[in-house]
């Protein structure tokens, strides 16, 4: 599913973000990525959808070798991956329905199929009744649910979430987590970078701790392990 072999990443400014990382994540796993800020979490996440390229080392996602994937085929990789961001990244001038449909329009899906599937995922995140509202009219938790809906609308094999609860209050965070649990239960791999100790300690899953560009700990059912 996802495999990293000796992945090394050095930014042009000289900072080494990943220092020879080895990891394997199987289809259907739920993985928390934890660690202090600046330890390489973001780089690790960004590499999954190829916003960043490894400087050296091999990296496989869904059987595609990211180092060998041609620039023009990057969209194909991204169509198999759903991404959820801390700041939601919804389009302000599109309504809820359009925001979710956008991900399917971009891949030129048929209109009837788009309609059916969008309503399906909006129902799943419990916001079908707000389909015509605009992001600014929704609470943070609702906006994040829309963004989760968008990430899964084209049935990706992996959903990558970069601090999805970072901007939410504890209660709505649990809503989002329950959603991820359900998505994971249907067989989708979830990779989630987080600073939320309570979530990691409560909903136990595999925990990968990254420190100084290396894996400091990799433990199935582990706890958050950091103070605060």
């Amino acid at each position, binding site marked *: 599913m996802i495999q990293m072999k000796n992945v090394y990443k050095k930014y042009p400014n000289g900072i080494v973000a990943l220092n020879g990382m080895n990891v394997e994540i199987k289809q259907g796993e739920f993985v928390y990525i934890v660690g202090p800020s600046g330890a390489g979490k973001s780089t690790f996440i960004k590499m999954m*959808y190829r*916003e960043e390229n490894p400087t050296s080392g091999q990296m496989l996602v869904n059987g595609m070798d990211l180092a060998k994937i041609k620039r*023009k*085929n990057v*969209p*194909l*990789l*991204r*169509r*198999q991956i759903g*991404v959820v961001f801390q700041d939601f*990244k919804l*389009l302000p001038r599109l309504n809820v329905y359009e925001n979710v449909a*956008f*991900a399917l*329009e*971009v*891949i*030129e*899906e048929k*209109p009837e199929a788009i309609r059916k*599937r969008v309503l399906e995922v909006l129902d799943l995140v419990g916001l079908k009744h707000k389909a015509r509202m605009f992001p600014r009219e929704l609470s943070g938790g609702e906006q994040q649910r829309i963004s989760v809906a*968008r990430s899964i609308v*084209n*049935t990706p094999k992996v959903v990558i979430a970069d601090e999805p609860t970072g901007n939410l209050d504890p209660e709505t965070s649990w809503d989002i987590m329950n959603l991820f649990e359900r998505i994971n239960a249907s067989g989708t791999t979830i990779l989630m970078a987080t600073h939320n100790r309570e979530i990691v300690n409560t909903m136990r899953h595999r925990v990968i701790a990254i420190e100084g560009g290396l894996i400091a700990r990799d433990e199935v059912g582990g706890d958050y392990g950091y103070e605060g």
Partner: protein
Amino acid sequence: MPVTKLEVTTDMKARTLARHFRESLKSLGRNGWMTFASVSAVTVTLLLVGVFVLIMMNLNKVAEDLENDVEIKSFVSLEADEATVTQMETAIKGMTGVESVVYSTKEAELQDLVLDFGDEFSLFEQSNPLLDVFYVKATEPQQTENVAKEISQLEGIEEVKYGEGKIEKLFTFLNTGRNVGLVLILALLFTAMFLISNTIRITIVARRHEIEIMKLVGATNWFVRIPFILEGMWLGLLGSIIPIGLVVALYYNITEFAEPKLSGEMIQLLDFAPFIYQVSALILLMGVFIGVWGSFMSIRKFLRV
């Protein structure tokens, strides 16, 4: 559900194209003032270009008319008898680069003179001081000089005349005019392209977020690019309407005014049709080109997500 394809296909579905058209038109409306600004820039540029093209093409025409009008006037000496004249005619006709040869006797020459300048010249009918003349036309204006030289060497030719000197000066002048015009047109086109690409860049910066999200959910570069390119095309099309209208009206009036005055002259302006249609098409094409190219250039760096 979408089946994973092995390659990003470039063939676009009709409804996607329709979507791109809708998006580009929406964007024109959303960017109201910026749209107005770039359309104005294109309008001014194309108007100047259009007027330049009118002037240059007509200068060209004038130059051609003058060039084609150059004739070699070869005077036959008095000693030449009829047999020599016939010989000379065949000789001239046989030269390379000769298009036509017309023989005119001195009597006919005098008649022309009388026709042109009045009856006073009929006095000369008593004792005609003129010479018989061959009017020779070269196939190419550039060959005139060589042909003239060759004719002057024939036995029985008294003198050869063709507007030497004056014509060359006129041609140099026209050529300089043409080159200056061309440079000005190019400079104008670059300015307009720069203006358009700036305008579109501003609208792109405003939609960066959107582009980023499009790229992250797996849109291809062309999917992102096409609406912007279409928007550029609209800007160019809108910007070419007024210039086309004005150039057509202007040239219509010029030809209406000049035609009666120039009738029968060797210098003629280009006819209204089809010339003005060609100029209109050129203006339209240039508008579209600067619009499309301007947006193409400005979107490039925003696609590297």
